[in-house]
């Protein structure tokens, strides 16, 4: 596994790190990736790939009915939005 390109990762995650922070975090990320890398040692020849983890519970398919249900604290939720202009949410200039 390639060592992490901290600069690229920061760009994708929209995070800013100082050079010191970046130098410190790079090895930490590597260690986490290597720790997961242990999974590569597992024998999978006779195992069918699972689409995703989590088994289906027969009685519940994880679906909800197409019925209207409002959040009970909707007004205070919307009121707590940082910056509004009238009914719209105001966001800073979009750069890209």
């Amino acid at each position, binding site marked *: 596994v390639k060592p992490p390109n901290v600069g690229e990762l920061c760009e994708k995650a929209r995070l800013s790190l100082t050079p010191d922070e970046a130098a410190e975090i790079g090895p930490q990320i590597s260690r986490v990736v290597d720790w997961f890398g242990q999974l590569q040692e597992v024998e999978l020849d006779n195992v069918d790939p699972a689409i*995703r983890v989590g088994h289906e519970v027969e009685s519940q*398919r994880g679906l909800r009915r*197409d019925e209207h249900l409002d959040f009970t604290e909707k007004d205070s*939720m919307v009121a707590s939005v940082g910056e509004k202009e009238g*009914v719209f*949410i105001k966001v800073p200039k*979009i750069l890209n």
Partner: protein
Amino acid sequence: MAMAMAMAVGSCESIVLLYSQPRIPRSALQIRCSSSLASKQASSSSKIPSALQDFEAVIGVETHVQLGTATKAFCGCLSQYGAQPNSNVCPVCMGLPGALPVLNERVVDFAVKLGLALNCDLSLRSKFDRKQYFYADLPKGYQISQFDIPIARHGSIEVDLPVEYGGGHRKFGITRVHIEEDAGKLVHAGGGGRLSGSPYSLVDLNRAGVPLLEIVSEPDMRTGIEAAEYAAEVARVVKCLGIGSGSMAEGSLRCDVNVSVRPRGQAAFGTKVEIKNMNSCAAMHRAIDFEILRQVALHKEGLESKIVQETRLWEEGSQRTVTMRAKEGLADYRYFPEPDLLELVLKQEQVDSINEALPELPNETRRRYEALGLSMQDVLVLADDKSVSEYFDSTLEQGADMKMAANWIMGDITAYLKTEKLSISDVKISPSVLAELVSLIKDGTISGKIGKEILPELIRNGGTAKEVIEAKGLTQISDEAEIASLVDKVLLENPKQLEAFKKGKTKLQGFFEGQVMRSTNGRVNPILMKKVVAQKLGLS
């Protein structure tokens, strides 16, 4: 700056010049490009313009269909067009910490319907993934979508190209159909409403979380009209299934296209250009044809390297595609399985019962009408809108003459609907009354002309044709004896003209016919009347 030649793609007689760098010699541009239905040139557009014969265009279409569910994909907020901004929101669709999505079962139902209608293989087990990027209209910082295991794959759709564009039947492949959620809406304040000039932006999250089905076609289309008709057919299928309003104008059906060209015979694809911002099938047609010509012209000048993989916008005003932004490099969406959602499992019995309950699809209706003997032109009109074809079918069930019923629906009724801005479900003339009207004309009780006169009243007020005819005393006069006495009267009242006729002015026969017609307020059977007039004038 580059020298530019204006490209004007207008209506009938458009001579095409090209925005390009640098100048394209006039000889390369002996092309007529038509987007107007009225153009006679267009009927030969199944023939490729000479300048394009060395090249083949490869077109693919990506369509986003907004589903007409009551609530959003992953929460119980209303999915509602035109509501006050930020009124249909909750922690889930606003992406607040701790909120968890739960899939709307009707979204699954609609997805299965569409997958089956598009002849797809359904994945009985599929999953959701996070497509991650940052944008102000995407509250969670990711869109819940389906990446590598979509709910449906490997389908197809059949279309019939409009007669005025050369007609023809096509079958286009569908690569995949998957479920995803829509983003919110951005309004760019200041800077003339454009993104680049705005000091800030305003966000409305009502649309965030609205369920979408994304349909990706195989790159099987070769012309603008093929792609436009593909989109029109997808819209028809969506409306027919009742899963959405399928309207490009309203924004509930959105199409992006990918266009590339390659020298004919070359196996490798050319550079693919994405085009966005087409608000109608007609705009798709024009945008694609423009883009094909733009790319071919660059090739012919040896400048194919200037065709870059980018997103271009269709400008309706100037009728051209323009660069949206400089190439940024491919986005890295860092897809991974959505941990908050279970695997999407379909039961075969569920799929089978949905399949059995599917309505007759537009292509099936067209084949059925063709088999009835209707012309392709009529088939395309009658089968375009399900409510119209259902009306037509009901009229036929009542025993109406097929051709006459078709003509009444496509002609007078459609004209009335257009003027009054109504749809066929608004008219008060039921299929059985139309059938009645048709049979009364067919058996000669009234003339076609009288039929046209009473139609508006029947549409507005309902009632039966017989009632209106009786109320207005409009029964057709078909008794020969009665007609004979009417003709005698007219000849008597017009001695001068009769004299002139006998002296050789044979054109006056029409005058006498007109007079008889007028004297009966249009009620006399025209064919019989003309026969009697001819007899009385000694012509037969």
